[in-house]
């Protein structure tokens, strides 16, 4: 029988309980959040073994042409987490394309008042590619080489 999956109430990743296995793991660094568009991107970043923090799944990227604004994504919840949970760094790991970059700029601006460090994965990933197709090494290098985002 297939186990029932639920959406994590904290990070919106897919899991088997109200808290996903990553949010429930005390060995994961709670002060760093990796922001991704989709639960599949969590799997991609996990495979790279380069990240020991926690996640936040936006449920997409800002896409004016598709009518997707911040209110259609889990942006408010991210702001809430950063303000509440003493987050030191937010790594924006959205796809390296127009929408992903716009999302990174938007988050950097929205988080500015909190003083949290906002970084973007390095451009080792070619523009237009989907994160979920990146091999572990490429994604790992992109995470290691992340840079601050200007708001």
């Amino acid at each position, binding site marked *: 029988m297939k186990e029932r999956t639920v959406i994590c109430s904290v990070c919106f990743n897919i899991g088997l309980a109200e808290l996903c296995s990553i949010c429930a793991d005390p060995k994961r660094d709670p002060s760093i959040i990796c922001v991704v568009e989709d639960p599949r991107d969590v799997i991609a970043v996990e495979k790279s073994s380069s990240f020991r923090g926690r996640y936040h799944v936006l449920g997409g990227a800002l896409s004016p042409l598709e009518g997707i604004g911040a209110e259609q994504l889990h942006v408010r919840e991210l702001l809430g987490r950063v303000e509440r949970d003493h987050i030191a760094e937010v790594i924006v790991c959205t796809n390296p394309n127009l929408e992903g970059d716009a999302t990174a700029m938007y988050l950097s601006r929205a988080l500015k008042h909190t003083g949290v460090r906002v970084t973007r994965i390095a451009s080792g990933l*070619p523009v237009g590619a989907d994160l979920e197709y990146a091999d572990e090494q490429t994604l790992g290098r992109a995470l290691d080489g992340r840079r601050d985002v200007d708001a």
Partner: protein
Amino acid sequence: MANYRDTGVVLRTIRLGEADRIVTILTPEHGKVRAVAKGVRKVKSRIGARLEPLTHVDMLCWRGRELDIVTQVEVVDVFRAIRSDLARLGPAMTMLEIVDQVTVDHQGSPALYTLLVRALRSLEATASPVTLAAFCLKLLMVEGVGPSVDFCTHCGREEPLVAFDAGEGGFLCHACRRGQAVSPEVVDLAKRICSGGLARALTEPEGPTVEALERIATSAVEHHLDRRLRTTRHQLTEETTPA
């Protein structure tokens, strides 16, 4: 004649299957083209980056029965300054949406293409807050439904213009007024844009006049399209409250 070459601006892309995208491109010679870009979502793809929305490209296509196939792409301009500034990216996205909505496949004029490229280059160079309003008014002119700025749309008299109505298709005098009331400054800015004073109009600073003209210009475009625009000027700069 199965292969063709053209320049174009990428308006939008949608995912197709596992790793492909359908790319919508406005060209001067072939109108609005929809073409498949194969494998562009794979990390090893060399043409993926070149077929993002808001990219000016030179391309080679293979004509297919339903959709064409992009075989080669060279980048002419990526509009880097627009992409790295949310205040410019919003208006640029709105321009792409309008152009996509105003054309059907294989249609579109060289004039429309030229208008889009010029507006994007202008936005890239100056960040003028007037760009979107000017683009909308010029687009309506290209479409043959430009608003009259010198006389009342309804009675045709050269009275002072005090209102704008998208349904009437232009500015109205005091006697005929309906729709949105407008200040003399707004009418003057529209006049400059529509009759050869664009360069000077683009130096107008951000403020209520520019915002009012942008509102009526986008509403006139929406009336022409018979559809609300999805993109809005402030979509990318709106604040979000924490939850």
